């Protein structure tokens, strides 16, 4: 059993309520930070912990916090990014639903470290039912003196607000989120300036993922160094993985960073193996935006090293033979899954979610979706496959925000690793009429 830091209390009855949470050691991180530490000491612990952003990009949280512009008298803001909309990722929702006070506690400590007196939780529009849960937790924390003016007589004051979005994936991008929070159209901003100097209302702002911020409480309690002992290399601590797809036990799991991908997929403690004892075909390791990995690269890297659930190991091999941990949304495909259909599905998502601001993403995502639709529906041409590779290359790196890259990578990687299957679709339109046509080897059997 791996150590649990975030989800350790999840099974305690009544943990949703303040009293039970408090009686089980809750809010002691706030006490410790506000009563015995200076904001800079808190920041130091977070730096020492080595925790990297859990929202996708994996940027070290301590470093991000130290970039916050402290030179002006403008107010500073902390924004908790709860817009979780990446296909395959559903860990933040789980955390907020089951352990709202853990998040609130993290927000208080983090805001204290940043010198922010206002904190926003920007929550995905579809998560309406969570708004009540969070607001109740905030209400209780306020009633008990952990939010509001002069918290625990430390002189530090904080307000936390929950702000639901209107259901747009792009509003998870930090600058689009800020625009949306300001009441504008959710278009990503052109950077620079970065939020650390000009964010919400043009004031210094830090945006962090729910899981990142929820981990701050435990880090303060156990100490940054202790936290950094968990995991390997630059992947410290524990990570929530949303596991879905053709596995026996889909769900949210907390892992110690550094267990092997094989263990995670096959151990009963986690995914419990492939559904129906089928063979593994591919995985998407970090939510739909990251490159897909074929079976031969899942357990071992191209260098024949064991593939681990860490930022570094999953990225080993670059885009040729690696992928990314991203937001930790693991999707498993069995031998019967059609990779063309899956790629089309992802592509449809990005086409639908593009904000339409910059031309490569606005036009390119739609183009890719239409071509993939044709291939999957038996109207592909052989030159379409190279065309797709070329479109994805033309989008990648040329856009305002990373959504363009996120749309390009799944397509490019699927063709890189499963070109045969794309060609099969083009050459045998009659054989792919049947809905279950993922296993092209099987289809060749007379």
């Amino acid at each position, binding site marked *: 059993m791996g150590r649990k830091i975030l989800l350790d209390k999840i099974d305690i009855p009544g943990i949703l309520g303040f009293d039970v949470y408090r009686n089980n050691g809750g809010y002691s991180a706030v006490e410790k930070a506000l009563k015995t530490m200076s904001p800079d000491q808190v920041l130091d612990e977070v730096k020492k912990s080595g925790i990297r952003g859990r929202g996708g990009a994996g940027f070290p949280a301590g470093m991000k916090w130290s970039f916050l512009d402290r030179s002006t008298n403008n107010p500073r803001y902390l924004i908790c990014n709860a817009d979780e909309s990446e296909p395959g990722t559903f860990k933040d929702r789980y955390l907020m639903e089951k352990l709202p006070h853990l998040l609130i506690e993290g927000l208080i400590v983090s805001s204290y470290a940043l010198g922010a007196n206002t904190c926003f939780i920007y929550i995905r529009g579809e998560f309406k039912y969570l708004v009540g849960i969070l607001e109740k937790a905030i209400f209780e924390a306020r009633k008990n003196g952990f939010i509001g003016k002069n918290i625990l007589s430390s002189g530090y004051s904080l307000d936390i607000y929950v702000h639901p979005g209107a259901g747009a994936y792009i509003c998870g991008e930090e600058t689009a989120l800020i625009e949306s929070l300001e009441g504008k159209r959710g278009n990503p901003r052109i950077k620079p300036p970065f939020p650390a100097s000009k964010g919400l209302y043009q004031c210094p702002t830090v945006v962090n993922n729910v899981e990142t911020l929820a981990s701050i409480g435990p880090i303060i309690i156990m100490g940054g160094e202790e936290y950094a002992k968990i995991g390997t290399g630059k992947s410290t601590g524990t990570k929530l993985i949303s596991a879905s797809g053709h596995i026996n036990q889909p769900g949210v799991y907390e892992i110690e960073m550094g267990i092997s991908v094989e263990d995670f997929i096959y151990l009963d403690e986690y995914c419990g193996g492939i559904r129906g004892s089928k063979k593994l075909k591919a995985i998407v390791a970090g939510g739909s935006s990251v490159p897909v990995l074929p079976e031969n690269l899942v357990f071992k890297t191209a260098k024949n090293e064991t593939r681990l659930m860490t930022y570094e190991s999953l990225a080993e091999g670059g885009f040729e033979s690696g992928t990314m941990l991203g937001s930790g949304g693991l999707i498993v495909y069995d031998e019967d899954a059609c990779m063309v259909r899956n790629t089309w599905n992802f592509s449809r998502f990005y086409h639908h979610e593009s*904000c*339409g601001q910059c031309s*490569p993403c606005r036009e390119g995502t739609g183009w890719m979706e239409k071509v993939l639709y044709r291939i999957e529906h038996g109207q592909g041409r052989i030159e379409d496959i190279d065309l797709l590779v070329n479109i994805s290359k*033309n989008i990648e790196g*040329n856009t305002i925000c990373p959504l363009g890259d996120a749309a390009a990578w799944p397509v490019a990687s699927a063709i890189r690793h499963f070109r045969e299957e794309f060609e099969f679709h083009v050459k045998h339109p009659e054989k792919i009429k049947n809905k279950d046509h993922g296993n092209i080897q099987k289809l060749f059997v007379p």
Partner: protein
Amino acid sequence: MAKVTIDNHVVEVPDGTTILQAARLIGGDIVPPTMCYYSKLEGSGGKCRTCLVKVSQSSGKDSRPMPKLVASCSTPVADGMVVQNITSPEVLEARKAIVEFLLINHPLDCPVCDQAGECDLQNLSYEHGLETTRYKEERRDYPSVDIGPYVKLHMNRCILCYRCVYTADQIAGKRIHGILYRGDVAEISTFIQNSIENEFSGNIIDVCPVGALTDKTFRFKSRVWFLNPFLAHRDCPTCSGKVTVWKFGKEIYRVTGRKDQFGEVDEFICNTCRFDKKGSEDWIIESPANIDKQSVISQNHYMKIKKGSIIKPLEQKTEPQD
């Protein structure tokens, strides 16, 4: 001050200047093309990506290149920065890709489009586009609509540069229109279809780089290259009254703002000057207008341009004959 090298030309500019502005100071064929940036509109730029350039050295202190191509219109210079535009094959390749993206949903209806001949998209595709299209799918299709009494909106031709939105916001003074929906079905729209009544609303026609917003008083009257442009002015109580009038013989067919070599108007003009003053007695003609921007309006010069080469600014400008 910052010293910047762009395609081997060195220029010194104040800190905070963008790469594009620095390039415009140098001038000539190293100036990146722009479809969305407009120096007179705050917040514009960064969207179309036609102005992408390569920063091969970030600054004097940091000799590393920037990892991606950057939008020159919205990236500030740094002292010692080295930029490549037309000297970088990577940039030209990317620009070609961008033009293709801008065109896949474009109706290519230049033969019936009033903008033809003075269209930035046309010029851009002539320089950087493919000869044919690789796009075999259906194009997006909107009905064209009247927005206000003077302006026609052909959403099919729009490249979503947002310039008209900023114009309505900043020049016309009232937030009268904006963008609806998102992605490739996003569209320019007014809150209530025909509510554009502001005295300066006509300027959205001038800032539009394509034929999406056209002048209804000039609709289908003439191809622009059959007209002769003259600088003219009148004593206008609302605006500067400094315009370009476009004549066919003795008759004034249309009135526009005066544009500089980058296709931007010098001064925004009012709707009365633009739409109502079409009599020759209304205007004092100053001189024939130079069409600085390379264009078919400067007739016969197109012949000299080799496709694929980088177009040089015209050395000698044609004097329009009356």
